[in-house]
C-alpha cells in the first residue's frame, strides 16, 4: 500500500498521542487488515456441519465484521490504526477475545483482553489463533435424586445417627463390663449441690423448724423421700 511521505510525518506527530488515541487518524489510505484463524474443537465436525457460516468475528463490538472461510481463517478489512477487541461468536462455543493493536506504522500486536488491568500485556501470537474454550453451557442441570445426597444430608444424618445409637446402646448395656464402667461414670458425675428449694422452704419456714443440727442428715433423707414421693405420685 502506498503511503505518502507527509502522512508519515503526520503519523510521527501523532505517536506521542497514539498510545491512547490512535483512532484520531482517519486517513482513508492508512487501512489495515486483521488476520487470524479459528481452531475448531475436535468434535466440531460431528456436531456442526457448517460451523464456519455460523461463526462471526466482531471487531469492537460489531463495528467491523469478519467472516470465516472454510479453512477457519478470517480477515477483517479496512481498519485504521488503533486498538481493537476481536471477538468470535458461535452459538455453541465460547471463544476468548483478543485485543489487537495496530500502531500508525502498521505494526501489529495482539494481547489478551484484560479490562481490569488495562496496562498488563500478555502477548498472544499474531495472526490471531482463536481456540474454542469449550462448549457454551447455557442450561442448568436438573438436580437428580441420588441416594448419597440423601444420606449425607446433615438432617438425615442427625436423625439416623441417634437412632443407631439407641439401637446399639442397649446391646452394649448387656455387656457387664461396659455397664460397670458406665455406672462408675455416673457415680462420678453425681455430686451434691445444696438444694435451692430446701433453702427457700427452710428460710420461709424459719422458726418452725425443730432443729438446725439435724438439717444435714435430713437433707439427704428428704431428698430421697422426695424422689420416692415423686414416684408414688406417678
Amino acid at each position, binding site marked *: 500500500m502506498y503511503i505518502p511521505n507527509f502522512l508519515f510525518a503526520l503519523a510521527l506527530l501523532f505517536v506521542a498521542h497514539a498510545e491512547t488515541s490512535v483512532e484520531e487518524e482517519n486517513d482513508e489510505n492508512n487501512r489495515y487488515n486483521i488476520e487470524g484463524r479459528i481452531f475448531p474443537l475436535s468434535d466440531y465436525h460431528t456436531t456442526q456441519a457448517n460451523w464456519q457460516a455460523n461463526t462471526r468475528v466482531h471487531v469492537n463490538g460489531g463495528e467491523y465484521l469478519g467472516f470465516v472461510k472454510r479453512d477457519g481463517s478470517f480477515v477483517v478489512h479496512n481498519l485504521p490504526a488503533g486498538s481493537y477487541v476481536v471477538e468470535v461468536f458461535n452459538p455453541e462455543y465460547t471463544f476468548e477475545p483478543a485485543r489487537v493493536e495496530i500502531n500508525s506504522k502498521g505494526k501489529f500486536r495482539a494481547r489478551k483482553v484484560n479490562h481490569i488491568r488495562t496496562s498488563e500485556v500478555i502477548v498472544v501470537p499474531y495472526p490471531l489463533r482463536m481456540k474454542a474454550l469449550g462448549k457454551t453451557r447455557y442450561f442448568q442441570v436438573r438436580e437428580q435424586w441420588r441416594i448419597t445426597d440423601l444420606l449425607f444430608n446433615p*438432617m438425615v444424618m442427625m436423625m439416623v445417627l441417634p437412632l443407631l445409637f439407641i439401637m446399639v446402646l442397649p446391646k452394649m448395656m448387656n455387656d457387664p463390663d461396659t455397664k460397670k464402667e458406665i455406672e462408675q461414670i455416673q457415680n462420678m458425675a453425681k455430686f451434691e449441690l445444696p*438444694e*435451692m*428449694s*430446701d433453702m*427457700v*422452704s427452710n428460710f*420461709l*419456714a424459719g422458726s*418452725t*423448724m*425443730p432443729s438446725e443440727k439435724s438439717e444435714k442428715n435430713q437433707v439427704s*433423707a*428428704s431428698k*430421697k*423421700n*422426695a*424422689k*420416692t*414421693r415423686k*414416684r*408414688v*405420685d*406417678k
Partner: protein
Amino acid sequence: MANKTQNLRTKWSLDSIRTNRVSAEALASPPGYSSSSVNSNAEVSKKTDVSRLINKKSWDIALAPLKQVPMNLFIMYMAGNSISIFPIMMVGMLFMKPLQAIWSAKTTFKMMETSNAILQMIVYILGNFVNIGLALYKCHSMGLLPTHASDWLAFVEPPTRLEYLGGGMILN
C-alpha cells in the same frame, strides 16, 4: 413398666430404712429396750416432716423454671444467631415450654395437697415469664422480632403523587 417402678420403689424404701437403721443402731438394741419414746418423737417429727416435705416439694416445683434459666442461657448461646432449623427449633422450645407450664400451672400445683401454694405459684409463673423473656431476647438477637423500622417497610404505602408529568423529545 408399672411393675418395674413398683420394684424400684420397694427397693428404694427398703434401702433407706436399712441405711437409717444401720446408722442409728450400730449395735443390736439390748433386750428390754423400749424405743417407744423415740418412736413417739419420730411420730411427731414425721407429721411435721410431711408438711415440710410438701412445702419443700412445692418450692421445688416453683423454683424449677428459675433453675432452668442457666441451662436455657447455655442453649441460647449454643444455638447461635443464624436462622436455620435447629436454632429455630430451640427458640420454639424456649417459648413453648414456659407457655405450656403457665397454662398447666394450676394442675401442677393441684397435685400438692396444700391449698396455700399461691406464693409458690407466683414464683413459678414468674420463673416461666423469665424464661419467656429469655426466649424473646433470643428472638430479638436473632432478628425475629419486628422492632426495627425495616420490619415495617413492606407496609409503607408509596406516597401519592401530586403532579403528573408527561412529555419528551419533540417528534418530527
